[in-house]
């Protein structure tokens, strides 16, 4: 188990941005009305926010970061590390984080780089940025996480199209020797890499005209090789097996129990999967907020988006959170943290 314990870091605030454009799964006419009803009931996803006119993940992360920096009247010169977690960068190269450093007016002394992870990405990003900052070399840091998953979706694929939504988030962290430790348990299993993937466009399978050919994979699923593949059963079983075990292992390692936490924030995969995990961990429903009803599965944005939208009116001045994420990679993990005076800013609709 990859247990990590990081001290001296305080999460100052979180912000999230989604596109204004809403797509309702009730209008998803690729499937019958009865199928739509069942889909909404099972996945818990009523609607999703989808980008229009070429909006990128970085645009939403930029707005979130700007809102945070402005809210705290942050001296840009103090932000010395920026990490962008995404699987939908602006370009193949350079890394989007570096473009964001300039766009946000951060100094050239800022260390900026990307992490290419999806569902588990927020936890990985949080572990990396907190580790970098814990020695006190950086006063403030920005963790930007999100995806425009819609760029890889086939509208004629009922297994992915009604599930994913687009979002970009920002988390502002600062060095604070009085902060309680943040603990992580992070894991990977590359043997399952085919369960969630886009097969063409990288070096293994370069993009060709063949990549664009739409083929029926099974009834209700027509897609090409640039589109996202999702093996629902494989991912479902993986998540049910690994996520609770990983969470229980971290709590055991820390000597904590589920009663020690105010909220459990899960990656927002789908309702039936998340509810199965919640029941396995024997968590009361009121401790497990959801954002997927109106935003769907928002990849690495899902944890901060859930905190921003669902805990905004709650007092987060002394709150114990347990975070759990699982998915593409396969990659998964959990984090245990205690936040003090953490600010959740109002959701931005771009």
């Amino acid at each position, binding site marked *: 188990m990859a247990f990590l314990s990081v001290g001296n870091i305080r999460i100052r605030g979180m912000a999230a941005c989604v596109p204004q454009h809403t797509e309702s799964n009730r209008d998803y006419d690729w499937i019958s009305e009865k*199928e739509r009803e069942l889909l909404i009931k099972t*996945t818990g996803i009523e609607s999703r926010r989808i980008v229009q006119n070429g909006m990128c993940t970085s645009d939403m992360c930029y707005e979130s970061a700007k809102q945070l920096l402005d809210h705290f009247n942050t001296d840009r010169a103090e932000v010395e590390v920026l990490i962008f977690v995404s699987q939908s960068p602006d370009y193949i190269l350079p890394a989007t984080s570096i473009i964001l450093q300039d766009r946000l007016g951060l100094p050239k002394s800022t260390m900026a780089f990307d992490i290419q992870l999806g569902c588990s990405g927020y936890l990985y990003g949080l572990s990396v940025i907190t580790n970098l900052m814990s020695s006190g070399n950086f006063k403030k840091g920005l963790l930007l996480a999100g995806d425009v998953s819609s760029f890889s979706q086939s509208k004629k694929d009922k*297994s992915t199209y009604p599930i994913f939504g687009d979002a970009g988030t920002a988390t502002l962290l600062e060095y604070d020797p009085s902060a309680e430790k943040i603990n992580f348990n992070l894991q990977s299993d590359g043997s399952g890499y085919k369960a969630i993937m886009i097969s063409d466009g990288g070096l293994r399978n370069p993009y060709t005209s063949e990549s664009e050919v739409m083929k029926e994979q099974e009834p209700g699923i027509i897609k090409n090789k640039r589109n996202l593949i999702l093996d*629902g*059963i*494989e991912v*479902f079983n993986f998540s*049910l097996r690994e996520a609770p075990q990983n969470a229980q292992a971290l709590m055991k390692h820390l000597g904590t129990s589920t009663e020690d936490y105010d909220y459990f924030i899960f990656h927002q995969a789908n309702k*039936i*999967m998340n509810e199965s995990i919640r029941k396995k961990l024997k968590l009361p429903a009121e401790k497990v907020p959801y954002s997927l009803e109106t935003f769907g599965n928002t990849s690495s944005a899902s944890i901060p988006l859930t905190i921003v939208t669902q805990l905004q009116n709650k007092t987060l001045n002394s709150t114990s959170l347990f975070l759990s994420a699982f998915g593409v990679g396969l990659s998964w993990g959990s984090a245990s943290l205690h936040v003090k005076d953490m600010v959740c800013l109002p959701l931005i609709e771009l």
Partner: protein
Amino acid sequence: MDITTFISQIENEIEELTPGSLTPETEFTSLKEWSSMHVLILIALIDTEYNVTITGADLQQCKSVNDLFNVVKSRV
């Protein structure tokens, strides 16, 4: 575990099924509007009730309710 309980659990979980309509011989794909969502509901139910994992390969082998019952029973 017994098949009567297994069947009633499936009927309780899948609202689209009329209680009493499922028999051990019923083939899943013959059910009206059987979909991938029902498959996930079934997998979640078996995981929760019996702590047994059912894979995609298992489901390809299991045509009928009885086939699935036997797979679950062998792993309990």
